[in-house]
């Protein structure tokens, strides 16, 4: 009797409130959509692997949202339907001769359980999850498929505090020294699956370019296989996602995806060593500054005169961590042979050129705009001021208080010759 009355009163208000909630939700979604671009967005996939993941995620999310509304709806319904209203409570208290919390007369039926109902709500979600798990298993298998041939390009990805190194094996043989060593920007051909081997030189990092694929941990002493592929040329942002110490937030990277012809051109350019500058040539003074200050850690192939195999040996020592307590090790910093061909530096936290809109064409450095001289010089002057590190503990770039402004200008001029 009373139930019917409550229900009648309930109907209108319930739907009014529900509508309010829906409007609020819609407004929130609209706000999100209107916000500026999200370079790390996991939901705007740009490659087949990210696509595969989202094709699985969205239906599951849909089911979750339906269940969400069912459960929350049930809660709201019961709150309104079975609530003891203030007036009734006061009346009950007046009737009762005890000061108990409730009146004596308003106990509902004491139901302990219902086997059939409980079996139903155990079995139905089980079946639902069984269906989801079939698709999950299919996805897991497909995501781990390597379609690239044995002798296709393979890239060894090496994480370290706090930047990424990419070692290119053009013939797919990762047991030989790499053909190209670069940093922070993973340049790759479009519509071609690139198998990766991910590892680390110090602590655990995680390689993640969300628009292309999920993440994979980079663990020292282990090599984790992963693949990456993009549908369209472009620059896709990435971020280290396993906490790796001081400048974890400043360990970013990009996948730069090129059309096949551009990719070939880029490879040819990277295969060429830098030529040592002779006295009188532009940048020679800077080269001297570089050799005196930077070459202890940074390599410029053809100039710093370090054999690549030795470099890698040095890196292995560095990976030991505990055994190295003092000097920085050659090869422990980004290879700068083609620095000016990149668009970012210092773990991809700074743009190398002023005009950020001109990201592509990647190869035509000249059209990218002016050098971002301010950040680059500040970085050379006092790197720890721009990006926290522990240079004394062989982690990160040290400050160079001894360099004069003239020397820094010369150094920058030299670095810009490294195309």
């Amino acid at each position, binding site marked *: 009797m009373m139930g019917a009355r409550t229900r009648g009163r309930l109907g209108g208000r319930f739907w009014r409130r529900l509508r309010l909630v829906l409007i609020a939700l819609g407004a929130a979604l609209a706000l999100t959509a209107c916000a500026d671009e999200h370079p790390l967005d996991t939901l705007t996939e740009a490659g087949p692997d990210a696509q595969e993941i989202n094709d699985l995620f969205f239906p599951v999310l849909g089911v979750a949202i339906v269940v969400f509304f069912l459960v929350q709806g049930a809660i709201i319904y019961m709150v309104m339907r*079975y609530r003891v209203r203030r007036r009734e409570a006061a009346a009950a208290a007046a009737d009762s001769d005890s000061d108990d919390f*409730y009146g004596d007369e308003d106990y509902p039926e004491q139901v302990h359980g219902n*086997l059939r109902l409980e079996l139903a709500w155990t079995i139905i979600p089980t079946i639902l999850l069984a269906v989801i798990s079939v698709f999950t298993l299919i996805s897991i298998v497909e995501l781990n498929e390597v379609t690239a041939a044995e002798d296709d390009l393979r890239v060894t990805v090496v994480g370290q*505090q706090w930047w990424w190194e990419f070692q290119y094996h053009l013939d797919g043989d990762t047991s030989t020294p790499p053909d190209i060593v670069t940093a922070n920007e993973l340049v790759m051909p479009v519509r071609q699956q690139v198998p990766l081997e991910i590892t680390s030189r110090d602590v655990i990092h995680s390689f993640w370019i969300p628009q292309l694929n*999920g993440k994979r941990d980079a663990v020292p002493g282990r090599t984790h296989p992963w693949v990456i592929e993009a549908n369209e040329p472009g620059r896709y942002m990435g971020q280290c996602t396993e*906490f790796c*110490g001081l400048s974890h937030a400043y360990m970013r990277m990009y996948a730069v995806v090129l059309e096949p012809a551009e990719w070939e051109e880029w490879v040819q350019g990277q295969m060429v060593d830098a030529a040592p500058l002779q006295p009188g040539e532009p940048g020679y003074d800077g080269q001297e500054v570089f050799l005196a200050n930077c070459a202890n850690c940074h390599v410029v192939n053809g100039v710093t005169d370090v054999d690549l195999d030795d470099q890698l040996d040095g890196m292995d020592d560095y*990976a030991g961590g505990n055994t190295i307590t003092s000097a920085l090790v050659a090869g422990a910093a980004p290879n700068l042979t083609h620095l000016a061909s990149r668009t970012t530096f210092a773990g991809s936290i700074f743009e190398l050129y002023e005009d950020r809109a001109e990201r592509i064409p990647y190869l035509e450095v000249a059209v990218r705009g002016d050098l971002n001289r301010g950040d680059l010089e500040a970085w050379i002057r006092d790197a720890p001021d721009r990006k926290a590190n522990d240079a004394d503990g062989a982690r990160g770039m040290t400050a160079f208080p001894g360099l004069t402004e003239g020397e820094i200008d010369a150094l920058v001029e030299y670095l810009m010759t490294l195309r």
Partner: protein
Amino acid sequence: MTTTSEPPLQLTAGEQLVRPSTSLGVLSRPKGDTGWQSWLFTVDHKRIGIMYGAAALLFLVMGGVEALLIRLQLAVPGGSVLSEDAYNQVFTMHGVTMVFLVIMPMAAAFANYLLPLQIGARDVAFPRLNAFSLWCFLAGGIFLNTSWFLGGAPDGGWFGYAPNSGLVYSPSNGMDFYALGLQIAGIASLVSAINLITTVLNMRAPGMTLFRMPVLSWMLLVVQFLLLFAIPVITVALFLLSFDRLFDANFFNVAAGADPLLWQHLFWIFGHPEVYILILPAFGIMSEVIPTFSRKPIFIAIGFMGWGVWAHHMFTSGMGPVSVAAFSLSTMFIAVPTGVKILNWLATMWGGRIRFTTAMLYSVGAVAMFTIGGLSGVTHAVAPADTQQTDTYYIVAHFHYVIFGGSLMGMLSGIYFWWPKMFGHKLDEKLGKIGFWVLLIGFNLTFGPMHILGLQGMSRRIHSYAADSGFNLWNLFATVGSFVIAVGVLLFFWNIGVSRRRARGAPPVGPDPWDARGLEWMTASPTPTHNFDRDITVTRQDEFWHRKWRIGDDGKVTRIARSEDVAHDGSATDVHLPSPSYWPFVVALGLPLVAYGLIYNLWITGLGALVILGGLYAWVFEPPDDPEAHAHDDHHDADPSDDSGNGASGGGTSPNGDGEPDSGDGTRQLAEAGVAGGPSAQATEEQP
């Protein structure tokens, strides 16, 4: 051995040789039940529970301030409130504090206070060990936090992944404090687990079979078993880390051939059950509060089947190298028992007469928020999706909905619910409700947007994000929300102050202010030191409720007795209680000394070891105050066969079958209680 004036020694089960209580200098028991000594040296499970709770609330404030610092730093891109180093310390300590120093001790507070009461016991099995647990936990928590003033707090994350937690990558002493502090707190949990398991298995009131225990008691018992299995694993891991950092042991040194994943395996074998350790006590609380305020019994026919599935998941996922697929599937299927649990709570409310007290609001709020956390959990149990979402703010949102929305809100519900039992007065309902809504809104404002941030690709544990990452709007929302939460928490503390002041001089609230169901309501409020005046003989689930209400053949519920008439008034004076002791506190004091010594100077370790050994020696040899004081272990474990006999006579609908002294069948009950109760220093309720 004994003096001639004393009666001959009687040896009964559980009793020791009784020494004369003549003064032995420092080896005498502390006296006095007022003042600071009555807290510092107490072995009363209720005082220990209250101190656990107070400490947890204190640490909640500290963890909360850390959270606010995090949110201030992330309010706008390129935040400069904290340095990178400081940020890493703050987020590490926020996680460690909230998990180990807030939720776990809060659960310990409920377990200590309520478990003995709910099973009708006088205290826990080992009262001095119980005091030791408390001081040990507090020693660990304070030790950990002194790192702020000693060169920097831990900075490797609450998960402390090797090798980033090693000496090379974390050169400050912070991670030493982490490893040693958690080790000390772990001793507390382990000791407490053994104590409470023994209590539940051995000290239940006559007729209180395991399956007649309230759901909260069950959940707490399960949690103690989980702790018993999980804590040793983290103990091993922390030992390895400590030895690596302090003595160059190379367990996690990759250059020396180690695999840093060893740490992850150990940590998550612990970490997985830890999730249940954090959530199950709140589930238990919600399972007490929702039936009470819906005026219906908890709706479970096959609920325990669900727990079986849960445990199955736990054992398969923790062990050995687990394939991604197996892990994913087993993780996904936790959703089933979890969902069943949620539906059970809903079904309990269905058709009820729901009173929205603050406690009920928090419980229903916890169901709603936990549902969200559970559903987002399913979306990333799908392993491929998890490769996108793990270590993003989507996960941050997920586990805050589970641990804040589920655990903490559930425990707040428990605080409002049992506050009158603990302190003899209710918390203010109006302030409580305002506080709830403020907290709920702030909570959703903070953690709701984090789902979006995570899907937009915002990583966890970053101290800064670029202005063009597109994270600005929702981070600002979250920061505003976090301060709304802070207001909600302040209202809670304000409420405690206001309600205490108002209650001063007012008569204590009755034994059963909510018309509740558990045995803990069957004695005066605040609970007298000796808990119950007489042993309670239990004949069915919700014994106390059935003594107040009769379910007629037509299903109609009628009152047969007032709570005040059924409940004990706390006037008994002949109940023997364990004496207070200095030594649990002293032994706990030695542990941080050992830890400081390991970091700074091994001589201090030696000193700490002496304190511990001396304390243990005194602990063992301290005398009981009076010969009876030692006769503490009342063997209450009921024989099931005896119990079924009781149940048959009591019946489902019999109003008061087990009988108070005036109920007519007292003689038979006395005989039965004699069998079931065994040697007991406490009068059973059937004795005239």
